[in-house]
């Protein structure tokens, strides 16, 4: 027996409600309902205002949700399956998940692939078609506290990607500056438990995080490369004690670094501005993301895209939104408001003058040479959640192989449902 959920609920709701309130009267203009990330006002509003200026007949009903709840709230809205919201933020690895469940509109006809970096298009595609709009990308770099290095007499890492530090070098340096008893640490990841941050540990040793078809984790995430990579990570907390354990709040780790309690931190390019404005007295430098000596450099990437609801009632207006947002000057405006690593090639050229700093030279090099996006699978939510829990447990000392094998089995079980 198959029942369409919407009909089931509709009939029972209407059946028991004798008095139904009248529907809200629709506006005269075309209104697009947009669910966006809760980024600060001064970064989002100018962008949206610019769009409305260019399109006087389209009004944007903008809703910004806090990061912690955005996925869940979107799930509930999308579950109602009626075209609300018209446009919504899509974390790039979720493209496959939303697309396979019929929530995203195909964008091949309105996006010109050649204008974008290949990794951006790859992150936006599912089953050979583009489903989300590549709006930006991300890159991680190594921040270090110049004063702490000087005080300990350690030579800081160079900003040249050709001579980037190895993880082994980082641990050695960290040990010299770490004083756990006084709450001073050598190193921390910005995101201590997220696959986004930590998969490169295994990928640098040659590991692949998931089967190419996106449905099998066993013998991939629990292979020797990841076991070795994550065990190395574990030892930073348990043996060499250069990292403060249990810092899972990504809003707190930059505070640690900024307050001078941690000598090194691998974090997003984004943190640069935060550090500069919040901690003006902090003397810090940037270096490329480390790698394993016997492996190759791998850096995390992937970003906030946005997508069009497959059931939108405003197809034309929504397509216009996509086209405008991805236009050269709108994308440059977005970059200026919120400096993400660009996926649109034009932005690199147009804003060349702002890319001269160490930070951007490193970011540009890595995004074009060492970046590996997260695995593409419709079951990404499940994958990420399960690996996250595994990483937490590994950090606190559990046996990496056991944890990863159990996680891989769980992942396989959960993503099997997308095969049908």
């Amino acid at each position, binding site marked *: 027996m198959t029942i369409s959920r919407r009909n089931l*609920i*509709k009939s029972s*709701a209407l059946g028991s409600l004798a008095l139904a309130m009248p529907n809200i009267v629709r506006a005269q203009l075309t209104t697009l309902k947009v669910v966006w990330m809760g*980024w*600060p006002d001064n970064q989002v509003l100018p962008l949206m205002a610019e769009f409305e200026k260019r399109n006087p007949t389209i009004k944007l009903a903008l809703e910004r949700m806090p*990061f912690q*709840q955005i996925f869940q709230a979107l799930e509930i809205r999308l579950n109602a399956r009626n075209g609300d919201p018209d446009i919504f933020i899509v974390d790039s690895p979720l493209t496959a998940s939303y697309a396979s469940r019929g929530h995203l509109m195909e964008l091949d006809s309105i996006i010109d692939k050649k204008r974008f970096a290949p990794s951006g298009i790859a992150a936006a595609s599912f089953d050979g078609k583009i489903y989300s709009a590549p709006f930006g990308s991300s890159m991680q770099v190594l921040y270090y506290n110049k004063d702490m290095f000087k005080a300990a007499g350690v030579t800081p890492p160079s900003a040249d990607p050709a001579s980037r530090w190895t993880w082994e070098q980082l641990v050695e340096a960290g040990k010299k500056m770490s004083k756990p008893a006084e709450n001073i640490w050598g190193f921390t990841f910005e995101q201590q438990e997220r696959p986004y941050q930590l998969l490169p540990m295994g990928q640098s040793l040659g590991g692949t995080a998931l089967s190419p078809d996106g449905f099998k984790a066993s013998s991939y995430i629990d292979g020797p490369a990841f076991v070795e990579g994550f065990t190395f990570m574990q030892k930073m907390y348990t043996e060499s004690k250069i990292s403060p354990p249990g810092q899972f709040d990504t809003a707190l780790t930059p*505070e640690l670094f900024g307050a001078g309690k941690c000598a090194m931190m691998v974090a997003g390019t*984004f943190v640069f501005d935060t550090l500069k404005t919040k901690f003006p007295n902090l003397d810090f430098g940037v270096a490329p993301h480390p790698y394993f000596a016997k492996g190759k450099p791998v850096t995390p990437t992937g970003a906030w895209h946005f997508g069009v609801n497959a059931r939108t009632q405003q197809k034309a207006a929504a397509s216009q939104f996509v086209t405008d947002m991805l236009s050269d000057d709108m994308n440059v405006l977005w970059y200026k408001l919120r400096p993400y690593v660009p996926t649109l090639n034009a932005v690199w050229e147009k804003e060349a003058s702002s890319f001269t700093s160490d930070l951007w030279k490193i970011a540009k090099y890595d995004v074009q040479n060492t970046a590996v996006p997260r695995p593409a699978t419709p079951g990404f939510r499940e994958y990420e959640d399960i690996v996250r829990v595994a990483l937490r447990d590994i950090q606190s000392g559990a046996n990496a192989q056991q944890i990863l094998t159990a996680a891989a089995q769980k992942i396989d079980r959960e993503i099997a449902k997308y095969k049908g």
Partner: protein
Amino acid sequence: MSHRLSEGLRYTLLVIIAVILLTPIYWLVMSSLRPADHIFRFSGNFSIETLIPFAFTLDNYSQALQSNVGRALFNSLFVSLTTVICGVFVNSLAGFAFAVFDFRFKKLLFVLILLSFMMPFESIVIPLYTLMRTIGWTDTYAALIMPEVAGGLIIFLFYQFFRGIPREIYEAARMDGANWWQIYYKMTMPLSGPTIATASLMIFIHQWDAFFWPLVATSSERLAVIQVAIARNMTMEQANWGAFFASASLAVLVAMVPFFWLQRHYVKIVITNADR
């Protein structure tokens, strides 16, 4: 044990408990007064500065007020107070019925009442949202208020209290020719000061704390409630702890007002009744 000693012991315990219960709130407010780079500077290593901020600023508050916080406070107050007024009325009526009458299906209906507050909210949120969409209430104050007016727990609260009123009082009133509405309205409710106060507090706090449902059910800025406004300060790459603590402190301070107000009247009513 001498009276002096036991009093001393009592007050010592009171102070210790008060410290445990109030320090986190104190810390919250103090943190909101610190400049951005000082917020966590003194939290890890204990010193006098951990407790008292030497560097003092109202920047965080001005930031918070510039964003939507003022409107959000108004929304939450409006929603909470409206739910309190409707809720006290609707639920006390039901509690009265269960306490005073015997009627067909009473046992079954009572079990249903219990059931209604035992259901995990996260599991009814999806059908509830779809329901809201169907009747066109998404993005309205109605969506925030109506689902929370009738509450099994409050009905149960009134029921327990009303059960304690002696039967003779009702019999006398019936003999005087009063109808049940008059008995409820003129006799029982006036006696129920403390219970009404408690119910009001519970409903108010429940609505004041509301977060996930308002996030899902409403989308416009003009309807944002305070907890959502607070949470919005926590973005992925760039948490504004200062504004977060400032708006959270405002939420806590505003929520304290009904307590202060009720506290004065509450104890008076209870003591008067107890001395009956």
